[in-house]
């Protein structure tokens, strides 16, 4: 054993590392989650501080059409002479908001239905799952074209579409977890005590499935951003909200490619890809850490500490 290994084995961890919150331990044990989280923090800051850090406004013409990247405009200009970097910064806010709220709608609707369905079971479960199946077989694309053309092109409608497309997935997943938790003896014990369904759901079932819901929400945001980009790319996005998807669509629409203006398309495309990747890294790591299916507690690695033997005289 090398001296270093020996030291590692013997030196007792200091008190504060023992009491570190689980989030910290999770990030430490899953480097890809830490990277994902770091990227997201950067983008979140950009989105929040957007109006203050963007050099120009999102509608402000500051130079020639498809001006090439140069000193005051490192990412060039678009078809209306607007600074791409500024657009990108303003778009971060819209894209992330749509992603988050879309995912939230899906999680709230899907989660509620999943919990009710899984917890009560029986006929209610059958009914709800039948409804879910209908939504599941509806082709996403058709759904979104229909909704966008009937209700019009607005951010709110895009959020609703995202919710409509993804809640079924969430509902099924949560339902299957809740069905397992419902059979646990401690839930039975609460029932035997005469606890109301609401109480059992809120105090015993939800805390057990919440980590999974959180992990899935993170993954869902990635999907929502992707869907928003796709919707915008199809020309169904909100014309007044310059999201990254709208930027890409705009670039193609105004034949940026034939102008050779790659800078109108690549930066927003890259931004979408990086953010989706970051959400995925964080989400899969969280899922891996939290999904009971993937873990058998007694086979897990343990992190107990070694310490030197106590002083004989003190101990005996």
């Amino acid at each position, binding site marked *: 054993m090398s001296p270093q290994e020996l030291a590692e084995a013997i030196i007792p961890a200091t008190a504060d590392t023992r009491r570190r919150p689980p989030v910290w331990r999770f990030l430490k044990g899953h480097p890809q989650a830490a990277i994902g989280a770091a990227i997201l923090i950067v983008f979140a800051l950009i989105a929040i501080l957007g109006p203050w850090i963007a050099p120009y406004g999102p509608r402000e013409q500051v130079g020639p059409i498809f001006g090439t990247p140069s000193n005051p405009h490192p990412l060039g200009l678009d078809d209306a002479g607007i600074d791409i970097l500024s657009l990108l910064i303003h778009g971060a806010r819209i894209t992330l908001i749509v992603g988050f709220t879309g995912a939230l709608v899906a999680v709230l609707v899907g989660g509620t239905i999943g919990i009710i369905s899984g917890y009560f079971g029986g006929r209610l479960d059958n009914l709800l799952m039948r409804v879910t199946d209908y939504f599941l077989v509806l082709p996403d694309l058709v759904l979104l074209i229909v909704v966008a053309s009937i209700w019009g092109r607005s951010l709110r409608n895009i959020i609703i579409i995202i919710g409509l497309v993804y809640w079924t997935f969430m509902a099924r997943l949560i339902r299957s977890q809740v069905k397992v938790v419902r059979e646990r003896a401690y839930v039975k014990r609460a029932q035997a005590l*005469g606890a*109301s369904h609401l109480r059992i759901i809120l105090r015993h079932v939800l805390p057990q499935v919440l980590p999974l819901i959180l992990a899935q929400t993170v993954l869902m945001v990635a999907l929502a951003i992707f869907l928003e980009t796709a919707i915008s790319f199809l020309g169904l996005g909100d014309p007044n909200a310059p999201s990254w998807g709208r930027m890409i669509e705009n670039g193609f629409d105004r034949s940026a490619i034939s102008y050779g203006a790659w800078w109108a398309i690549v930066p927003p495309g890259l931004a979408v890809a990086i953010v989706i990747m970051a959400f995925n890294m964080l989400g899969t790591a969280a899922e891996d850490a939290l999904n009971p299916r993937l873990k058998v507690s007694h086979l897990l690695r343990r992190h107990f500490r070694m310490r030197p033997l106590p002083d004989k005289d003190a101990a005996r």
Partner: protein
Amino acid sequence: MSEPLLEIEDLVVGYRQGRKGVVQAVDGVSLAVAAGAMVALVGESGCGKTTTAQAAMRMAPIASGRIRYRGADITALGSRALRPIRRELQLIFQDPYESLDPRFRVRDTVLEPLQIHGIADDREGRMRRALERAGLTPPELYLDRYPHELSGGQRQRVSIAAALALEPTMLLADEPVSMLDVSVRAGILGLLDDLRRDGLGVLMITHDLSTAARYADRICVMYLGRIVEEGPTAEVIGDPRHPYTQALLSVVPRPDPDDAGEPRILRGETPNPADVPTGCRFHPRCPVAQDRCRTDDPVLAPAGAAGHRAACPYA
């Protein structure tokens, strides 16, 4: 003896298994527990003891039969109507590793029944007294711990404390002391014995025949969903009639390492309720089975002293 508190009559419980069909985990069990009595339910694991107790709490799918509490039929009551009964009828779950919510501290687990039944006065005091009565002294040492920070016996005592917090009139105790050592066990059973003297009815499920012999008034022996022998404790222990009871008693380990006794260990797999043998359900493992046993299904019939019954014509 007074009026029966809890009566179970001809109970049949079927669990659905796969798409194929139903497993009859309990198949025609009748028993009654009076106020101030302790009835022990013993039998092979998987024979349906837990299912019987859970059905009495209306927590298992009852296929037929009646459950009566204080004379009133509760077999078909809705959950709202059951609530007041669930305050008086408490179940201590078999497995303290599963039946304590891993996210609840000891404090919250014991407080929960009081919250559910809206008992507001002196909650904290009631909770502490319940823990002390269950032998977790001083309570402060345990209040803020999670179940995984307790030993097996300590978890079991938390379960017991939670059940006693509501001061029930009828207790269904499913292996309440299996993880406790002899001295703590004696303390808990002594407590139940005292409560029983004050009118508590106890149905105690246990594997420990020595405990049953010491504390119960009556013993019911179950085998594969049925009661095969029942009677006053001294009768069942001193003069067992059913061959299964006899075998069961013979394998209780003895404290002296030099005295092994003559254990009659039954061979064969634990019988499967999905596949009940014809005739006497014990016949494939019965050391004294006769030809008729393969076809005739015996019923409980008086055997030995008064109140002692066994389901074996050769008893």
